[in-house]
């Protein structure tokens, strides 16, 4: 099978994120994003004007305003004009676009950022607007309800139970105690049913946050970072649109993306999985064939902080940062978008062995 492999070497050389908070009313979006951009640039010593390509991910529906992403461009110094693009998706897909841009040879470095402020609206209601507008959106099934249908399907299939789901949430929040940016960490009550079978502890916190990554090619990456996290494969796939057409207990799109990214060519030691709901981790572990030896979501994952549109990019950033720190040699990072793991992106990140 053809593989989504690089013809140029491209690495994540820097990663920064905000503290993820329930509300950030005192900050506009650019005011929230700008410190993160400054931090990620400072890690490399690059100035905004030296970046070859800039790409962002966000959603107007979270802000409730058209073209809201243009305001954050002020934070990257977009005058005089820069080479820039935007995806109305999680920033992981902005990273994919930047990776393609570098593959074409049109850029040697890229700044990728993503942000989401869920606090101005009701994110459960807002996310219903991404659903099929003919048969589904008029019923207003919210994001928790759809995730709960998936969880029940897994329970019916004997693949998990409520106790095992609670353990996923507990492990995530325990791991998040080592992550100063996390919104939820430590012991968090499992709580009442939100939409049964999902309890509060099975659901992600709702919050505001931002993240940024710098990509660089070849020797530029080596000059900017002591141990670059090389993206040796990256691919993204989508499921059929209708939820009732899918086997919600499986994620064939994740598996296919992983095959094409080369996940199964060699063992991974770390997996950063974008599983906003506990039951989705069960699906992803199966699709990616992750055994117990793999460290899953050491950052705490999306159950500890889930800034919508940034949480997937953060998974890539966290996996890369573990490679930068020498804590991982070969990691898989996953991002999702849409209901019940509708769209899935998988990247393999590797550090050079000493």
């Amino acid at each position, binding site marked *: 099978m053809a593989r989504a492999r690089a013809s140029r070497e491209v690495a994540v050389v820097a990663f920064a994120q905000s503290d993820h908070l329930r509300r950030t009313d005192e900050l506009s979006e650019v005011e929230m994003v*700008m410190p993160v951009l400054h931090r990620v640039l400072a890690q490399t010593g690059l100035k905004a004007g030296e970046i070859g390509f800039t790409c962002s991910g966000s959603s107007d529906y979270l802000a409730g305003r058209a073209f809201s992403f243009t305001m954050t461009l002020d934070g990257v110094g977009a005058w005089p004009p820069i080479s820039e693009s935007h995806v109305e998706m999680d920033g992981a897909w902005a990273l994919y676009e930047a990776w393609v841009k570098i593959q074409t040879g049109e850029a040697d470095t890229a700044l990728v950022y993503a942000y989401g402020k869920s606090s101005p609206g009701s994110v459960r209601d807002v996310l219903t607007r991404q659903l099929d507008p003919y048969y589904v959106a008029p*019923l207003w099934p919210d994001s928790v309800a759809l995730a709960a*249908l998936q969880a029940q399907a897994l329970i019916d299939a004997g693949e998990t139970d409520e106790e095992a789901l609670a353990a996923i949430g507990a492990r995530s929040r325990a791991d998040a105690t080592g992550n100063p940016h996390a919104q939820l960490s430590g012991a968090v009550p499992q709580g009442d049913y939100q939409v049964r079978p999902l309890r509060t502890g099975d659901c992600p916190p709702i919050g505001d946050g931002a993240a940024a990554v710098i990509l660089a090619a070849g020797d530029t990456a080596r000059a900017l970072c002591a141990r670059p996290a090389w993206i040796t494969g990256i691919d993204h796939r989508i499921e059929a649109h209708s939820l*009732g057409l899918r086997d919600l207990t499986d994620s064939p799109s994740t598996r296919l993306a992983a095959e094409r990214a080369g996940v199964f060519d060699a063992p991974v030691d770390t997996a950063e999985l974008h599983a906003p709901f506990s039951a989705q981790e069960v699906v992803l572990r199966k699709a990616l064939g992750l055994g117990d030896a793999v460290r899953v979501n050491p950052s705490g994952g999306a159950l500890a902080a889930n800034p919508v549109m940034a949480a997937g990019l953060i998974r890539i950033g966290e996996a890369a940062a573990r490679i930068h720190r020498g804590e991982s040699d070969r990691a898989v990072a996953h991002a999702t978008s849409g209901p019940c793991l509708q769209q899935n992106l998988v990247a393999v990140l590797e550090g050079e062995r000493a």
Partner: protein
Amino acid sequence: MTAAPTPDVLRAPLVVEFPFTRSLGPVQSAFLTGLRERVVLGVKTADGRVMVPPAEYDPVTAEEIRDLVEVGATGTVTTWAWNADPRPQQPLATPFAWVLVRLDGADTALLHALDAPGPEAVRSGMRVRIRWAAERTGAITDIACFEPYEDEHGDPHEGEAAPAGQPHDGVFEDAVTGIVAEARLDYVYSPGRAQTAYINGLAERRTIGERCPSCHKVYVPPRGACPTCGVATTDRVEVGPAGTVTTYCIVNIKARNLDIEVPYVYAHIALDGAGLALHGRIGGIPYDQVRMGLRVEPVWTEGGSHPDHYRPTGEPDADYDVYKELI
């Protein structure tokens, strides 16, 4: 010039409403018109599977599919989730189950609500039937919800005709060809630090800009960042009140709901001390006498949250060299 204190944040309700008008393809039209007539149609794929709700293209092969078949109004729950706290626009106001239902004769499942007394009354595999809405328009909400279709022992009721699974021509009188997908989302908007200071300044009839610490340009209105340098603008600067017309246009078409007589002049005005021009209407002078370099000042109306328009100050015009960088 002072370092910016953290202001009390402004907040205001923001309502976004959008009545998207969507046209339907032949399959969607037949399906939604059928619901109006209490007939449920699916579509048969090349490999013989029946999709309900129907799509116009096979999700695996991407081939166009048009073969409609009628399926039952009864079916089987494939998965469910108990919604104890319905949100405002959802199908039922009382606690209900979200369900995926595979209707009899279909191979795929439809998402909807199930009216049941409690979670103990719901399980995957249970038999359910459609409860039709009293008034139907050709929309998915013509199915009011599903309701249990089995006795207290969990046995299905007898007596209703089994689904035909027969081909259907999809032809109905007065077919529905479009839907209006109405939506409303409620937000609370907060403009952030820089714009809060600007709006609070306007309340005192002062215009507050922010200076970039790197290039020293003063932005009005400020958005908190210098788009050239990509850094926070931190120093507040009061600009104006007077300014200079840098360029303008004459508006001859009356906008709906606007009570300004045409023609009128809309201008870019560089307030004194500002590093870029803002927009404003020019009044107090015949429209054909407005010119680049005209010196103007704001005119506030009672209770106005911003200048209503700008009028000539009577000063001599500004030299072109003074404002040419701001055009």
